[in-house]
C-alpha cells in the first residue's frame, strides 16, 4: 500500500518549490498580468534549462525519461505560485499527444525540440462560445490542408506547433500544424491575462495526421483525461496557497479586539477550505496512480480528481478574498491572482459540469463492462 510519492519525487517537488520561490514566480505572474506580454520568457527558459519540459520524453529523444508522477509534483508547484509559462499546454497536452499518438518520424523531429524549447506546442479545440463536441467542430481538413478558426487557444503566441481538432472525411482528426506567419494568430483578452490565450485563423495550412483517421475525438478524450490529473495538481497547489494566505491573514488581522481567526465564522470557513482541499488532494493522488499505471479506471479517476480539484480551488480562492475583506478586493493584494487562475484552470480542459458528466458516463460504462464480465 503506497498512495504517496516516492522520496525522489518529493525531492524533485521541494527543489521545484525552492526554485520557483527564488525566482519570484508569483511576482512574475503579476507582471505578466499587468504588462503586454503573454508569458514570462525568462522563467520559461529557466524551466527548460531545468529539464522539466522533457520529464516524460524518453531518453532516446534527449528527455529525462521519467513518469507522470514526476510531472504531477512539478504541476503542484507551478500551481502554487501561478507560474506564467506555457507548461500545461505544451507539456501536459501537446507533448503527451506526440508521445502517445504521433508517428516515429514526427517523434524524431519534435520530441528533442520539445526538450530543448525550440519547439513549443499547444492544443486547439474550441471554436464557439459553447462546449466543443464531436458535432460542432467546423474546422475542416481536406487533402491535408486545414481551414477554420480556433479560439481560446493557450500559448499560441509562443507555440511553434499546434494539434488542431478538425473535421475530416471519416470523422474527427487530430492534425499537427506548424504555427507560421501564414496563420492569423491574435491575442485575446481573458479573465486571467497572466496566461496568454489566442485565436488562430487557418486558411489551407499544411498538416500531418496524428493518430488514426476519424479517431480524433476519442484520442482527445484520452489526452484530456490524462491532462485533467495534472491540472488537478496545479489546482491543489493553488488551493493550498490560498488556504495558507487566508490562515495567515486570519491570525494577524484583528477586529473587535481579537484575531479574526478566533471567530467561528472564519474558523469554519477555513475548515471548509481544508476539507475540500483534502478531498481534492486525495482524489488527485488516486488520479496520479491511475495515470502512472495506465489503469482502466483512468477516466473515472481523472474526472474525480478534476471535479474535486476544481471545486477546491474555486472555493478556496473565493473565500480567501472574503477572509481578506476589502483588502482582498484590491489589485495590490495577491488574492485576485489566485481567483483568476482558479477560474481559468477550471475551464482550460473543460468546465465543472462537463467533468461531472464525464464522471457519471464513466460510472455507467464501468457498470456495463462489469455486467458483461459477470462481475
Amino acid at each position, binding site marked *: *500500500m*503506497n*498512495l*504517496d*510519492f516516492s522520496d525522489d519525487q518529493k525531492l524533485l517537488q521541494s527543489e521545484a518549490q525552492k526554485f520557483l520561490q527564488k525566482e519570484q514566480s508569483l511576482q512574475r505572474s503579476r507582471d505578466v498580468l499587468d504588462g503586454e506580454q503573454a508569458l514570462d520568457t525568462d522563467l520559461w527558459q529557466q524551466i527548460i534549462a531545468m529539464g522539466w519540459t522533457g520529464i516524460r520524453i524518453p531518453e532516446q529523444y534527449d528527455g529525462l525519461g521519467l513518469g507522470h*508522477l514526476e510531472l504531477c509534483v512539478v504541476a503542484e508547484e507551478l500551481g502554487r505560485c501561478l507560474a506564467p509559462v506555457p507548461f500545461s499546454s505544451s507539456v501536459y497536452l501537446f507533448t503527451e499527444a506526440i508521445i502517445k499518438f504521433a508517428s516515429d518520424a514526427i517523434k524524431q523531429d519534435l520530441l528533442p525540440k520539445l526538450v530543448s524549447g525550440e519547439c513549443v506546442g499547444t492544443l486547439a479545440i474550441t471554436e464557439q462560445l459553447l462546449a466543443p463536441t464531436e458535432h460542432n467542430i467546423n474546422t475542416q481538413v481536406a487533402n491535408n490542408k486545414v481551414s477554420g478558426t480556433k479560439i481560446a487557444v493557450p500559448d499560441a503566441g509562443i507555440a511553434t506547433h499546434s494539434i488542431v481538432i478538425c473535421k475530416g472525411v471519416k470523422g474527427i482528426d487530430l492534425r499537427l500544424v506548424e504555427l507560421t506567419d501564414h496563420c492569423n494568430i491574435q491575442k485575446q483578452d481573458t479573465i486571467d491575462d497572466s496566461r496568454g490565450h489566442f485565436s488562430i485563423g487557418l486558411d489551407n495550412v499544411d498538416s500531418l495526421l496524428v493518430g488514426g483517421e476519424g479517431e480524433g475525438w476519442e484520442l482527445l478524450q484520452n489526452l484530456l483525461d490524462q491532462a485533467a490529473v495534472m491540472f488537478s495538481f496545479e489546482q491543489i497547489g493553488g488551493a493550498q496557497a490560498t*488556504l495558507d494566505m487566508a*490562515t495567515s491573514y*486570519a*491570525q494577524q488581522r484583528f477586529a473587535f479586539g*481579537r*484575531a479574526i*481567526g*478566533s*471567530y*467561528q465564522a*472564519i*474558523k*469554519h470557513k*477555513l*475548515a*471548509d477550505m*481544508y*476539507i475540500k482541499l*483534502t*478531498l*481534492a488532494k*486525495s*482524489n488527485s*493522488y*488516486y488520479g*496520479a*496512480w491511475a495515470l*502512472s*499505471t495506465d489503469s482502466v479506471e483512468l477516466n473515472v479517476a481523472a*474526472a*474525480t480528481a478534476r*471535479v*474535486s480539484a476544481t*471545486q477546491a480551488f474555486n472555493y478556496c480562492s473565493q473565500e480567501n478574498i472574503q477572509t481578506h475583506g476589502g483588502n482582498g478586493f484590491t489589485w495590490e493584494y495577491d488574492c485576485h491572482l489566485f481567483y483568476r487562475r482558479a477560474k481559468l484552470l477550471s475551464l482550460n480542459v473543460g468546465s465543472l*459540469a462537463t467533468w*461531472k*458528466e464525464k*464522471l*457519471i458516463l464513466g*460510472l*455507467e460504462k464501468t457498470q456495463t463492462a462489469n455486467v458483461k464480465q459477470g462481475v
Partner: protein
Amino acid sequence: MNFNDSEQQAQFRTKCSTWLHDNAQRKTQAGSDNPHGKRDSSEFLNAARSWQKKKFDAGWAMLHWPKIYGGLEASPLERIIWGQEEAKFDVPQGIYEIGLGMAGPVMMQYATEQQKQRYLPPMAAGEEIWCQLFSEPSAGSDVAGLRSKAVQDGDDWIINGQKVWTSGAQFCDYGIIVVRHDPNVDKHAGMTFFFVDMKSPGIDIKPIKQITGGSSFNEVYFNDVRIPDSQRLGAIGDGWRVAITTLMNERLAVGDANGVDATEAFEWAQSQDDHGQALIQNHAVRESIADWYCQASGLKNTKLRTMSALSKGDTPGPEASITKVVSANKLQAIGNFGIDSLDMAGMLKTERSEVHDFHNAWLGSAGLRIAGGTDEILKNIIAERVLGLPQDPRADKGLAFKDIPSGK
C-alpha cells in the same frame, strides 16, 4: 504508487481472512437485513458476545494490545488490515466499539498493573461490557461544563448527578466517568476521573427514545453512588486531561457515518422512473451523484494515504479529521435525495429495502452530525489544531466553576 500489500502485509491479510472464513459468514449483499437480530435485542447482544469471545480466544479482539492482556501486539497497519477484512463478513457490530475504543486506552494508560490484569482481558473478551459517562444535560459540546458531584468520604467517593447519551448503559458492567470534585476552582482543574461498577447501588438507567424510534442511548442517574478511591484514574484534579485522551480516541472510534452512499444513490437512480425516463437521466441528479461520488472517493483515498504513512512507519497527517463531517453530511444529502425521488409517495414507509435505507439515512444522519463531536466542534478542531488558528475567547476563563454563567 500502488495499492498492493507488501509481502508481509499480504501474509497478515491472508491470516485474517482465513480465520474469518472459518469462523464467520461472508457478506452477501449490501443492505441485507442483519441476520443477528434487531439492534438492542437480547438476541443481538448474545450474538455480539459470542463473536467477541471467539475473536478474543484467537487473539483478534484487541490485536494491537500486549499479549499479556490478550492481544497480538499488532502494528497500527495490521489493525487496519484486520478491520478491512472483518468488514467483509456479516458479524454483529456496535456493542463493544465504545468500551474497547475509549475505556480500553484509558485503562491501559491510567489503571494500576493489577487492575489492568483484572479488567482488560474480560473487556477484550466481551465478558464485561464498558460504557462512557461524560455528557450531561448541561454539558454537551462543552463537556468540561459538567456538574455531577464527587465528594470524598474515607476511602470512597460519593457521586451525585446525571449523565446522558450513554450508549449501551442498560447492559454495561463498568463505565468510565468524569465528575466535579471541586466547583470552587477553574472548571478544567476541578474534575476527577474514575471507573465505576454499573451495578453499584444508586445507579438508575433510563433509555432515551431517539428520533429514529430506537433507544441506543440512556440517561444515567447517580444517587449517592460509592466509588472506591482505588478506581480513580489519574490524580485528583486531573480529570480533564484524562478525558481528553478518551475524546481523542472517540474521534477514531466513531469514524465514518455508515449507510447509503454514492453507489447506492447511483444504482437507485438507474432503476427509479422520473417522468417516463430513468432518474439517472436527470441532470440535477447526475450532478449531485457526481458530488457524492467525489466525496466518497476523497474519503476512501484519504484513508489510503493514512495507511501509506503507517506502512512506511511515518506518523499520519491530520487528514483523517475530515472523515465524520464529510460522511455524515453526505449521508443526510443522500437520504434526502432518495426520499425526494419518490415525490408525493416519499413520505411512505414501504417494504422496499432501498426506501427503508434512505429513510434511515435521513433520520440517522441528523444524529451522526452530532455524536462524537458536532460538525461545529469538529470544524473548530480542524481550525485550531490543524490550521493553528487561535482559540475562541471564553467567557468562563479565570472564573471558579461555580461563578460561570450557565443560563437556564
